[in-house]
């Protein structure tokens, strides 16, 4: 979230797309309900079916799964064509005025530089045009936005094709409803109004998912909704600490705090190379050397010295050509290339895409360690219950009982980036241990096993700092301190990341978390629920990264002279009376939040109006490099019942296609129905934590598949019947929920049916059922490789065959 949960109450319009917030983030509705009641805010729910969220929305717009770019593209076009964008904001705070390289072009679904062999773009032409005579290579700009090669005009031209009629032919949304959505959300383009986009997995789990979010960014920048209360792009995280997990660098391409992990590319051959590659010329990211070196100091302690590049070479350099994301790992496992796996609280046999294949892949392992609260479908993948033949499986499986969140302490980072400490409520049951203790013990024993080794390749393990206290409470405390970071000369905790240094005198595990645990105490434990800001910032409740900032990009809330665009939406402003003249300060940024800006840089200063300080050019990117294009473009999902009517390019040209066994692509002649998966409020993720609870099992006892009355009639299915859903990958038996809330789509004159199925279920626990992910494919987003769970093809029929 660029904003935070409580801030939802400040919105004038919430566009909830790719999210069933009422179902999966009920707490969001605490604030949205308040916005609605107190401010008359409008809630728009865009979803393939009418959901619990839609029930509480002012407008419900049906949309076929996998057509988000078309839907939002149409809104972008509507905003531009009707001059509803926030002109001054767009000109000054985005790259709208920047002129693009002459080589850039877009033709029939493809951007310039495409290599069909590699399914990859050469992004050379996707660059700003510069004056060859300018030694600084400053981008050329046209603040009038009239130059046909400026970003704004290219954007306008790109999305011109997304007129309302075309969009509705793609998405299946009734035209009048679509226009109502456009009119309502575009109304937030005024300075005193804000609109928020709330999204979740319905946006992210597509083959062009990153471009869905890019489309949201463009729309929000055009409407001036970034950096203001009640605005922003808000990812409603599907798990209480998934924000924390990405902050900690759990993704395969990242170190901690979104520092890119080095690859085997020659550019990363040493620390200087890494710094050169990763440090831009302008902006806050120029501090990258401080962050990476402080992180290395936290990891390798005294062993990290300037002479040895702070142990930079200990970092693994992954093969840039190989894919280490979820799908990539399981494909490698299926091919027998992975020998062992540690699975912490994950249940891929239920939650992974193409679950049949992922269960099969586990059979190729030599060993597997499952760490979980319960015996899950994954930890028992080898059993007869799972449909496997134990006599043929050689995998040695270890099960380590983990304790639940109430049996341990620690922090979780919520969607709004608030790092909140949770105290232990009860002691763990039996031999169960916290994940941290398990990891600590593992690290300790591995180090012991390698002790005394002189093999250079064991050095990273031996030099790794692992001198934590044994006792859980102290262990956690020390890990938190290490994440925050120390001034190594004074051994004092660092107060903020601005104090990090690149000379090896500071350590910091996760630079964005710096400041959460200072000499003043553990700020994640702060619980002052008094709001001193009037807009619900609660600055003394927990600690939000970065530097306790609650609304990021908040410099955008003020105009070029530093005054709020409007009184209603003010966050920070320039106060010329506050600066310290002795230090040569002309004033100071003050207000209701920690400024997302250098606090003493005046609006009149050279870079005083570049609000996006993390971007190399300081402005919001309407045009930005992504694997599959600088602008979002609609492509059909990997499996789609219809042809792309916008271009001859059917599928995202940069998405990786896994041509491997057990991952057949379904065709519409055999599988004419669109399938999607989702959750219900009564269960959580792959279900181990809720399907084992009788009270929740009582509420949602079986896996069900929702379908329209029209489809049910066509297939002779009655409400409550047992039906089979079949895709090219597998079959699932479920109870039919025939409902008015799902309607067939009219896609360019063709009636297209969609069904939705819950993915929580498996054969273990109190509430049991078939895992819906037996149906989903191994295909991922072009940029992140997030699996396309949300749009695939299937057929449905009555009974079990």
């Amino acid at each position, binding site marked *: 979230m660029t904003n935070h949960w409580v801030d939802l109450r400040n919105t004038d319009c919430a566009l909830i797309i790719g999210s069933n917030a009422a179902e999966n983030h009920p707490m969001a509705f*605490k604030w949205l309900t308040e916005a609605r009641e107190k401010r008359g805010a409008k809630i728009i729910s865009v979803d393939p079916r009418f959901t*619990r969220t839609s029930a509480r929305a002012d407008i419900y717009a049906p949309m076929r799964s996998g057509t988000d770019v078309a839907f939002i593209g149409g809104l972008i076009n509507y905003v531009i064509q009707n001059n509803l964008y926030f002109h001054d904001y767009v000109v000054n705070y985005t790259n709208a005025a920047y002129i693009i390289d002459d080589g850039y072009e877009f033709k029939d679904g493809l951007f310039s530089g495409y290599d069909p062999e590699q399914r990859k773009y050469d992004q050379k032409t996707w660059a700003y045009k510069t004056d060859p005579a300018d030694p600084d290579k400053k981008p050329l700009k046209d603040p009038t936005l009239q130059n046909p090669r400026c970003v704004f005009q290219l954007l306008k031209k790109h999305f011109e094709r997304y007129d309302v009629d075309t969009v509705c032919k793609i998405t299946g949304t009734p035209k009048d409803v679509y226009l109502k959505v456009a009119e309502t959300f575009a109304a937030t383009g005024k300075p005193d109004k804000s609109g928020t986009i709330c999204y979740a997995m319905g946006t992210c789990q597509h083959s062009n998912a990153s471009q869905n979010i890019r489309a949201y960014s463009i729309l929000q920048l055009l409407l001036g909704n970034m950096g203001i209360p009640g605005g922003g792009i808000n990812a409603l995280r599907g798990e209480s600490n998934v924000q924390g997990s990405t902050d900690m660098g759990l993704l395969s391409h990242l170190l901690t705090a979104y520092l890119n992990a080095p690859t085997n590319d020659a550019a990363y051959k040493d620390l200087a190379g890494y710094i050169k590659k990763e440090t831009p010329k302008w902006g806050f990211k120029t501090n990258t050397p401080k962050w990476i070196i402080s992180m290395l100091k936290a990891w390798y302690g005294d062993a990290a010295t300037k002479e040895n590049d702070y142990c930079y070479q200990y970092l693994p350099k992954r093969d840039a050509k190989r894919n280490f994301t979820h799908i990539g790992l399981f494909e490698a496992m299926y091919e027998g290339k992975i020998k062992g796996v540690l699975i912490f609280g994950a249940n891929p046999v239920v939650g992974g895409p193409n679950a049949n294949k992922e269960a099969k892949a586990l059979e190729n392992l030599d060993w597997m360690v499952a760490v979980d609260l319960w015996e899950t479908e994954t930890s028992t993948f080898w059993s007869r219950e799972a449909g496997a033949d134990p006599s043929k499986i050689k995998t040695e499986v270890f099960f380590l009982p983990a304790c639940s969140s109430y049996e341990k302490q620690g922090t979780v980072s919520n969607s709004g980036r608030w790092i909140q400490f949770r105290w232990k409520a009860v002691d763990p049951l039996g031999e169960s241990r916290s994940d941290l203790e398990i990891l600590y013990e593992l690290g300790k024993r591995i180090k012991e096993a390698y002790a005394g080794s002189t093999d250079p390749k064991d050095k990273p393990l031996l030099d790794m700092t692992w001198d934590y206290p044994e006792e859980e409470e102290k262990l956690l405390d020390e890990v938190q301190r290490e994440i925050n970071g120390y001034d190594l000369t004074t051994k004092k905790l660092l107060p903020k990341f601005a104090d990090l240094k690149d000379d090896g005198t500071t350590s910091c595990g996760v630079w964005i978390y710096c400041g959460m645990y200072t000499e003043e105490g553990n700020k994640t434990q702060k619980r002052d629920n008094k709001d001193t800001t009037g807009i619900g910032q609660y600055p003394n409740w927990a600690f939000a990264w970065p530097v306790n900032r609650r609304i990021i990009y908040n410099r955008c809330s003020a105009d070029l002279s530093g005054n709020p665009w409007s009184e209603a939406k003010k966050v920070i402003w320039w106060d010329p009376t506050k600066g310290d003249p002795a230090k040569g300060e002309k004033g100071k940024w003050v207000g209701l939040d920690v400024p997302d800006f250098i606090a003493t840089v005046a609006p009149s200063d050279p870079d005083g109006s570049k609000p996006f300080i993390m971007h190399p050019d300081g402005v919001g990117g309407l045009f930005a490099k992504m694997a599959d294009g600088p602008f979002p473009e609609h492509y059909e999902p990997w499996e789609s019942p219809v042809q792309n009517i916008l271009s001859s390019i059917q599928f995202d040209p940069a998405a990786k296609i896994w041509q491997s066994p057990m991952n057949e692509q379904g065709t519409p002649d055999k599988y004419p129905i669109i399938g999607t998966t989702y959750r219900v*409020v009564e269960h959580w993720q792959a279900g181990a934590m809720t399907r084992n609870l009788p009270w929740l099992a009582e509420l949602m006892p079986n896996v069900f598949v929702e379908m329209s009355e029209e489809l049910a009639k066509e297939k002779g299915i009655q409400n409550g019947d047992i039906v089979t859903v079949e895709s090219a990958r597998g079959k699932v038996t479920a*109870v039919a929920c025939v409902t008015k809330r799902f309607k067939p789509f009219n896609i360019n004159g063709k009636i297209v049916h969609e069904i939705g199925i819950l993915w929580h279920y498996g054969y273990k626990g109190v509430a049991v059922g078939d895992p819906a992910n037996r149906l989903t494919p191994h295909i991922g987003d072009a940029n992140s490789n997030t699996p396309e769970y949300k749009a695939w093809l299937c057929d449905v029929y009555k009974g079990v065959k």
Partner: protein
Amino acid sequence: MAKGYLVDTTKCIGCRGCVVACKNWNQLPAEPTGFKGTYQTVADFSGNTFTYIGFNEYEENGQLKWYFTKRQCMHCLDPACMKVCPQKAISIVDGAVVRDYGKCAGCQYCASACPFHVPRYNTKINKETKCSMCAERVAEGMLPACVKACVTGALQFGERDELLAIAKERVNALKAEYPNARVYGENDAGGTSVLYVLADVPSKYGLPENPQVSALTTAWQKYVKPYGPWLIALTAAGSILSFFSTRLLKVGQRAHEEESLHG
């Protein structure tokens, strides 16, 4: 002044947190259910279910509606259950219609008298059970478990008068968009401590349009119970009368034939 609930159906998202909180606080076991084509898997009250959410979907003029209704004891101001209870086990405490399970005989009269058919038989304790407005929590200054669990503010707890004022204000605000909006429970069934803000007619929420104590129960309560036993008294009195009159009249009469035979 007495306590009450306000259920604002226009704010409810049907998450059923209240249902689980109720079971948790009251330590009520889960019952076997099955998904039968509706989200309303817990379809009705039971001896182990004091509250549930009704799910009703409609399509009107192409507009879809999905109404979520939290159902629980309405805590009537003039409760029929209390009137029919022979053990005087039911009383009103600060707006809550509560039962003294020590006094309750398990006769189940209250169940059929209730105009909302709320109390249900719990076979384990052999009593009719229902929501107590978490009287034991309220007595300690806490909110009822369901209200505590509600995330959206659809459930509020407080003085009934104040809640009624809030409800009316809310309905006024809703009227423009929802002409059928109304407060339910102000006077329905003689007034209830549980008030609803409805955006549509009560029947669409699964609530009775005109809840009242049935004529059969009234007849039973008003006529059969008070007057019936007099019939027994009458026959007993007749028999006593006969006992004496037969003997008095016989004084001057010849003894009965069989008596002479007997003698």
